[in-house]
């Protein structure tokens, strides 16, 4: 085939011209090669000179692996320097989900090596499911050295398992400080998303999750240490370069008295209640206990699903901080405050009212708690006997606005600046408030209800302690948790000192003068407690029931029992400490476990520790031991009940045996018959109070 290229045929090609073409083109090829060589040198120069710094950095970050050492958390100490929360050295094992290859077999070997219970295995599985991958999931803490070593030597077969030696948070007070201090736990995936701080995903690092641990998280968190190691691409450590030790967080010194806090928690017995103690000198909170509670030690370790389940179903609401989030009708505890308002309005303490057991207001008949009436009473008698008719009558004379003004001055309805994330602060109702809230006119029966602390009026236990302290001192003390905090001088309540003396004397009569609070009498020489009892109804008493006799609280289901309240201070003539105790559905069923005696014993602890402890230890035997012992038993019973439910354990016989072995207390029975969570404590307007 001799096809010609038409465009090219004109040019004649000879051997000589071809040779010339070759020489020229060979030079082009050689030149191109030189150019490429020069380009390569330029490129290399660019990388190694101009970008040297960048690549040096990258090379270093390849080579050096920075491991953070979680900082030890600052201690939380009480006013005397005793630890409320400290750190304990421990061996622990975590899982890094994204590094695991076979989760199931890894968990199985760990469960075998560390003797994990089914509960814990279940928790680990749950957390693994929810985990973001890079965030460590705790397997176990507080391991013995042998367990720790057993896991460590098997690491090559357990990818994703990270054993470490660290510190875990320890709360010597256990459940009694649960709501006060909160607890710590691994940072959530959301925290990490927000802050991107690598410390948050370092195994063993915990953040405050609730209470003061959360409020002072920044101060308590120290500076992490760092360990720089040279590693290969596969993560094998070649050598250690430098280690910078961690800086522990700052300690926080609280106004809390550790001994008193624990005592108050234990003294609350099997009740669902709270105790708050305030220093009358400056408003320092000495104790703020809410029981039952969770044990922050077990919360900080990662709580099991079953334990959480049990706590959240308990009708004694151990997961709610009742001191700040519990709102209760104050009942008759407001009567000293109302009396102070009466005095301020010019009513003489000697004026009397005749109590016949009932009074008609409008077209409703209002009853006194004493069916047959108290007879003629002056102010002192009315407070001591907690006569309702006296206050119904007197309050109508001065009107609600004056009472509401006094209520606010003694701290009711007031929101305090506190280091807690949530705080319910209740209501002081008055005509303006009702109009705004319900668009209804204030009625006389509203005043009547309010004067005995029912109706719209609500208070939390801390506020009640503040009220006691303000009645005791005449100063608007503010509650405080930080030891030695600088505060301005408290403003006066703005009442006549003589009036205060009258009120204190009447409150002393409640306890020591044959009044309703005889159970709060302290058997201490020279120290008399003054106080006021209260009962808040949570159900309406029908006329029919009243006719046949009001049902006793003991015969009512737990949820329908009255709240039992007490507020007071001691010594009555020169107040040093103020106290409040509110028992949810306490119902005054059991004198030993009622609010006046709990308050008196707690107060006694401040004057004579040995005596108070002796009494507590005797009483505790009847309750089934310390809160920790009771919680452990409750957990055991709950686990068994669950097992029976699932058909894993033989039913009634065993469960009955458990019941028999337990002293009769409501906590244990509550565990076996879980009630729905407490939804709303606001009671219907009631017509009686004691």
């Amino acid at each position, binding site marked *: 085939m001799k096809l010609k290229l038409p465009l090219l045929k004109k040019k004649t*090609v000879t051997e000589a011209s071809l040779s010339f073409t*070759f020489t020229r*083109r*060979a030079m082009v090829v*050689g030149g191109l090669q030189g150019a490429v060589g020069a380009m390569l040198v330029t490129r*290399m120069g660019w990388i*190694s000179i101009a970008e040297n710094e960048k690549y040096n950095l990258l*090379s270093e970050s390849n080579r050096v692996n920075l491991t953070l050492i979680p900082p030890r958390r600052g201690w939380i100490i009480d006013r005397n320097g005793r630890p409320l929360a400290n750190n304990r050295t421990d061996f622990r094992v975590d899982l890094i989900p994204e590094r695991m290859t076979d989760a199931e077999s890894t968990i199985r070997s760990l469960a075998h090596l560390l003797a994990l219970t089914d509960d814990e295995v279940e928790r680990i599985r749950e957390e693994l499911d929810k985990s973001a991958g890079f965030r460590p999931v705790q397997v176990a803490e507080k391991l013995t050295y042998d367990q720790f070593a057993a896991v460590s030597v098997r690491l090559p077969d357990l990818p994703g398992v990270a054993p470490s030696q660290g510190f875990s948070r320890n709360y010597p007070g256990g459940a009694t400080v649960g709501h006060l201090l909160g607890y710590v736990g691994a940072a959530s995936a959301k925290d990490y998303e927000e802050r991107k701080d690598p410390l948050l995903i370092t195994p063993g690092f915990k953040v405050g999750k609730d209470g003061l641990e959360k409020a002072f998280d920044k101060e308590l968190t120290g500076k992490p240490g760092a360990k720089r190691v040279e*590693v290969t691409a596969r993560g094998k450590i*070649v050598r250690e370069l430098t280690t910078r030790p961690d800086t522990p967080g700052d300690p926080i010194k609280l106004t809390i008295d550790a001994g008193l806090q624990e005592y108050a928690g234990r003294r609350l017995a099997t009740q669902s209640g709270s105790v708050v103690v305030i220093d009358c000198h400056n408003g320092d909170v000495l104790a703020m206990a809410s029981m039952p509670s969770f044990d922050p030690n077990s919360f900080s370790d990662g709580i099991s699903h079953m334990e959480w389940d049990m706590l959240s179903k308990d009708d004694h609401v151990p997961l709610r901080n009742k001191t700040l989030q519990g709102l209760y009708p104050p009942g008759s505890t407001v009567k000293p405050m109302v009396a102070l308002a009466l005095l301020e309005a010019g009513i003489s303490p000697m004026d009397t009212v005749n109590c016949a057991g009932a009074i008609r207001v409008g077209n409703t008949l209002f009853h006194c708690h004493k069916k047959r009436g108290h007879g003629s009473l002056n102010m002192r008698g009315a407070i001591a006997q907690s006569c309702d008719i006296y206050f119904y009558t007197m309050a109508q004379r001065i009107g609600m606005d004056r009472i509401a003004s006094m209520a606010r001055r003694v701290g009711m309805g007031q929101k305090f600046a506190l280091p807690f994330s949530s705080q319910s602060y209740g209501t002081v109702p008055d005509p303006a408030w009702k109009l705004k809230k319900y668009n209804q006119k204030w009625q006389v029966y509203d005043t009547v209800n309010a004067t005995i602390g029912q109706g719209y009026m609500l208070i939390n236990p801390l506020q009640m302690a503040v009220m006691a302290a303000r009645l005791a001192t005449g100063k608007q003390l503010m509650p405080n948790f930080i030891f030695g905090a600088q505060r301005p001088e408290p403003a006066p309540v703005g009442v006549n000192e003589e009036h205060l003396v009258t009120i204190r004397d009447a409150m002393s009569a409640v306890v020591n003068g044959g009044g309703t609070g005889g159970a709060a009498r302290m058997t201490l020489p020279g120290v008399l407690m003054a106080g006021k009892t209260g009962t808040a109804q949570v159900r309406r008493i029908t006329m029919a029931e009243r006719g046949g006799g009001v049902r006793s609280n003991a015969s009512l289901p737990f949820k329908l029992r009255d709240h039992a309240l007490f507020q007071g201070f001691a010594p009555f003539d020169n107040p040093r400490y103020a106290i409040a105790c509110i028992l949810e559905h306490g119902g005054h069923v059991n004198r030993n476990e009622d609010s006046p005696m709990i308050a008196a014993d707690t107060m006694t602890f401040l004057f004579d520790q040995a005596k108070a402890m002796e009494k507590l230890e005797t009483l505790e035997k009847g309750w089934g031991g310390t809160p920790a012992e009771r919680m452990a038993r409750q957990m055991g019973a709950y686990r068994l009940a669950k097992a029976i439910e699932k058909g894993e354990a033989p039913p009634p016989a065993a469960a009955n045996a458990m019941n028999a072995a337990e002293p009769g207390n409501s906590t244990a029975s509550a565990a076996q018959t879980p009630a729905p969570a407490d939804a709303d404590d606001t009671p219907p307007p009631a017509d009686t109070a004691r």
Partner: protein
Amino acid sequence: MSIVPEPLTQFPWRVLGILLAIAGFGTLVLYSAAGGSITPWAINQGVRFIIFSCMALVLSRIRLEYFARFAFPAYGLVLVSLLMVELIGGVAGGSQRWINLGFMQLQPSEFMKPIIVLAVARFYALLPVGEIRRWNAIWPALVLIGVPFMLVLVQPDLGTATMIAAGGVTVMFLAGLPLRLFVGSGLAFAAIVPIAFSFLHDYQKNRVLIFMDPESDPLGAGYHISQSKIAIGSGGIFGKGFLKGTQSHLDYLPEGHTDFVFATMAEEWGLLGGVLLIGAFMLLFRWGIGVSMRSQDKYARLVAAGLTTTVFFYVAINLMMVMGLAPVVGIPLPFMSYGGSSMLTVMLCVGIIMAIERSGRQRNRPGSWG
């Protein structure tokens, strides 16, 4: 007449010196890459260099006519073995590129790199002068190049296929084909690339994009290039020092003794080492092109320039790859990368060029003038 005996002056001292310098340096780098040990790489590489140097010297004594005469038979033989590899690989159920010879694994595609130059050069040497501007001058060469190119491409080995095509086309260019053919196809190629790109699968597009910006996928396909650039960049001007490279010794740099040996070298010897090495290679290419230009024989000059360019492609593609200017294609750096096949090929090229130099010198010998 010189005092120095003729065989000594004829001995290719200069080129052997350059090779010895490069290979010696390469052996040193392999010693470091093994963590300061002559085993397993440095010793093997050194011994191989000596053996293949001897082979090259033996080749240089062979008369040029033999290379010309055996160009086509050798081409046929390599083509058959390429086909065999393809068939064996198909039987074995995977891609196989080599035949096991017992002492070494032979990649026929490796031999195709110099043989294609010999074959295409032979074709143009045989082509009558007047035919150079006809179709007859083009299509046989395209077939000669195209068949092995396709066979290697389906292995798949894009790097080697590219080098075979590039070696063959270079010879076509040097043979004197009209320039507009090259310019035209170059422009056409440039126009087709973006269109072809749009027809690629997503994962293939991804590969190209990752090559453009390796940092976008530092743990995946871009890992090699990223780590290689980190090694070169962190070396700076004078390097981190012999045996002190961290990228290579801590295994961040993949293939640090084979394809990415230049990065291993640059990390420890810095820009200085890189410039000296590139300079040495440039001297080698200058020698090759020089031999080609001095040669009077048409076949000889095409072969010398073509083989030089083949070696050049090794170096250029490898260095562009390690510096992030080309995708990762698996082309080793001659005398530096650990491995027998590439050194054998390059030494074949060098040996043949030395034979051309020798034959040219013999023709120009004063004694033969008479």
